[in-house]
């Protein structure tokens, strides 16, 4: 017997429902998603460059990462490397869009779950939540204290201004935000990367730097200190995956920030793409090779036990956590970046966690803050050192006539993102996306292994009765780009 607990989780991209199965001690929670747009199928027959544009529509926060993964897949097919200058511009775009996604995540998606009418009466600023379906309730269990909540709320206009500056900076390079128009295989199409443009972006980012380096970290720190439950680790054993940083275009710091790898049972291994699979258990998709006789495609709305359109990403049959924390932990274990190792080490000590069980709301939020600080610093460095006379692309026409395939791996704000394209005679013959939502928001697979968030919800449910607000808090502590996963 199933009972809907949350009909529609607010303030996320796409549609997500939380359902309880069973009663009493046997009860469990699972996630149901909104429907699929069948984007992968709709790309079949299209000219390959269209994938770069179309896949960006899947997500406001991860759109840039989709574009980069898609263009990387095309480059992999064409065997065409982007120019060093183009890599630098791409690095800026990905870092800024990730930074923006993290700010939006904390202030507009997660924070409202901990606010009540008391906070609003002190600080106001409710108008900044107009489009985010936020209706402050009366004071409830686990809310922020009046002082901390009001202080953070007072910083909302500053956070909104940061989003404005970051979006402007991205648009100046990419044409517009959130849909980037300048990415092509072999580089970028920009021609006016002149001194004035670079200075405009630098000025924008300099203005928002104090918020990113001081206000936001201080808000997250107060948030964590005020809410001890955010440091509780509901699931001790968790495996991690990270696709690592984009190349920065400089040989000496190709792995400038993040290493790629998987951390299974605290052992770091290099990624083998062939081990990334997707479980169709409890999804509306039919197994490979089977077709629905009615609509001639691979989905069945009446499939027994089906409840989600999010295919379950697994690495070597294991669910994996992905996101800012996973990126930092994998790099920490890899030992390639001392600054990150130092940050992670101190964070784990301060929160009283262990390196083998680091996954809690507080560590995920702090990892995003650390990442934000590293990214703003790195972006400004790239802009200041940018050599304007370098070629921005390979100055060549694209030949998509041969039959072949290409893969692009990028770390989106929410985590590991894979695009795979199959091309023949100038047309896409097959397209595959595995997004961070497929890793974190998947339901149980045929081996009975739940995805990361379902595991956390059920582990918390075993310890206490969860209110809808507590469930919402757990979901909002992750980047929830559901349309990314349903596609």
């Amino acid at each position, binding site marked *: 017997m199933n009972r809907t607990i949350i009909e529609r989780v607010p303030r996320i991209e796409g549609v997500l429902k939380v359902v309880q199965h069973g009663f009493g001690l046997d009860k469990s929670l699972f996630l149901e998603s909104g429907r*699929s747009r069948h984007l992968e199928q709709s790309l079949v027959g299209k000219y390959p460059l*269209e994938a770069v544009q179309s896949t960006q529509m899947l*997500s406001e926060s991860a759109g840039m990462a989709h574009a980069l993964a898609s263009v990387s897949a095309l480059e992999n097919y064409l065997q065409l490397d982007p120019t060093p200058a183009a890599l630098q511009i791409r690095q800026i775009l990905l870092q800024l869009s990730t930074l923006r996604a993290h700010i939006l995540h904390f202030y507009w998606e997660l924070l409202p779950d901990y606010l009540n009418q008391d906070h609003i009466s002190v600080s106001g600023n409710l*108008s900044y939540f107009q489009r985010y379906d936020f*209706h402050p309730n009366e004071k409830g269990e686990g809310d922020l204290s009046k002082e901390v909540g009001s202080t953070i709320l007072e910083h909302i206009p500053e956070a909104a201004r940061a989003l404005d500056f970051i979006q402007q900076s991205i648009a*100046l*390079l990419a044409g517009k935000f959130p849909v980037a128009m300048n990415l092509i295989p*072999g580089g970028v199409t920009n021609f*006016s990367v002149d001194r004035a443009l670079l200075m405009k972006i630098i000025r924008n980012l300099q203005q928002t730097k104090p918020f990113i380096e001081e206000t936001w970290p201080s808000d997250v720190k107060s948030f964590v200190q005020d809410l001890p439950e955010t440091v509780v680790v509901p699931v001790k054993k968790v495996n991690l995956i990270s696709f690592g940083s984009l190349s920065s275009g400089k040989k000496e710091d190709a792995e400038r920030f993040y290493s790629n790898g998987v951390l299974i049972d605290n052992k770091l291994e290099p990624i083998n793409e062939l081990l990334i699979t997707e479980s169709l258990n409890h999804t509306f998709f039919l197994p490979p090779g089977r077709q629905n006789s009615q609509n001639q495609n691979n989905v069945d709305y009446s499939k027994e036990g089906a409840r989600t359109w999010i295919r379950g990403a697994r690495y070597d049959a294991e669910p994996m956590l992905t996101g800012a924390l996973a990126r930092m932990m994998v790099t920490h274990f890899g030992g390639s970046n001392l600054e990150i190792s130092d940050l992670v080490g101190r964070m784990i000590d301060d929160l009283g966690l262990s390196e083998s069980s680091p996954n809690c709301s507080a560590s995920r939020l702090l990892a995003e803050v650390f990442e934000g600080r590293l990214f703003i610093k790195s972006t400004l460095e790239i802009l200041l050192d940018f050599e304007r006379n370098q070629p921005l692309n390979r100055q060549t026409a*694209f030949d998509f006539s041969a039959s072949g395939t290409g893969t692009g791996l990028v770390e989106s704000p929410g985590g590991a993102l894979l695009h795979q394209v199959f091309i023949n005679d100038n047309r896409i013959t097959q397209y595959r996306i595995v997004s961070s939502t497929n890793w974190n928001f998947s339901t149980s697979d045929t081996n009975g292994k739940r995805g990361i968030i379902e595991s956390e919800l059920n582990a918390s449910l075993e310890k206490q009765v969860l209110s809808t607000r507590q469930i919402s808090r757990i979901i909002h502590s992750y980047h929830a780009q559901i349309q990314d996963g349903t596609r």
Partner: protein
Amino acid sequence: MDTFFNHLTRRKFVKCLAAGSISIPILMKGLAQNLMAAELDTRPPIIWLKGQTSGIHSAGIWNFPEFPGFMDRFFRIMPASDINRDFLQSDDSEVASSHILILEGLFTDDPDDIVNDLIKDLIVVSRVVILLGNDAAYGKHVPEGFMDTERNLLYHVETPYLKLPGAPAHPRHLLGVLNHLVLYGLPELDIFRRPALFFTDNICERCEYRSDFEAGRFVRYHGEKEGCLYLLGCKGPMTKNTCPIEKWNGTSSWCVAAGSPCTGCSEPAYPVHGGLGMYGQLSSRDASINSFFVRHLETITQGTAVVAAAAIATHAISKRASSPIKGQRMPTLEDEDE
């Protein structure tokens, strides 16, 4: 500025908005004065209902820092979670029956979907419906399992509706329409039900590379050089939008300025464009090209190639026939030994 806005007629307002000659802050200030002068005692309620959407149509609003305060002052956005059956039958019937309804994203055809259940009743009692973004505005390419919003929900009701398409929709269009609705009522619409003040002129007519287009100076492959992107499939000649004058995200940037051909994202045919796709080149007729050179570019190129090939062949034949063989060494006995 006070003087200007004190005499802002509807005609002048539409002209300024369409030409992009007033910035968002000035527009807000001016309209605020007009709204106050009109002595609106109630803030028009807005219900912003999201179907399945990624949120791309709302992101641009962050680039107008005045937007939240302005909306809060002159409109009343109802939280979507407050919109339910009780709301429709509530005492606040004035709000329930006089709201502006914004529909964003795709809506499923699932009868058990709570939004699906509510949306039909909301539309009937709305003052006007705004379809924001391509998913809501154009039903031609709606994926299986979702509704064509216009055909399934709006054809059979009397509620007026308009479309603000785009990938993403331009936030300035939304702001302009909301203010037009409050001050002057429903704006004039084109045949696709888009506000004529934003969707009348072709992108190409106001593009910075228009002179290159006229002169036939084209970019031949992505990233080759700065210039007109017509040969790369630019849909500017047949796309009606304000991108070249309003730009994006409060900057001086837009798609073509970044080196990308216009993909015609606010046209009903997007992204298929009658089989051309985003990057398929328009025929000279579709592009309404007047220039003799551009219209006959292909013929001229082919003709030139044929003439050149013929000339080379003739030259080669005549050369072989008339000139002595030079530079050839006669074989020697040593060569044969090798």
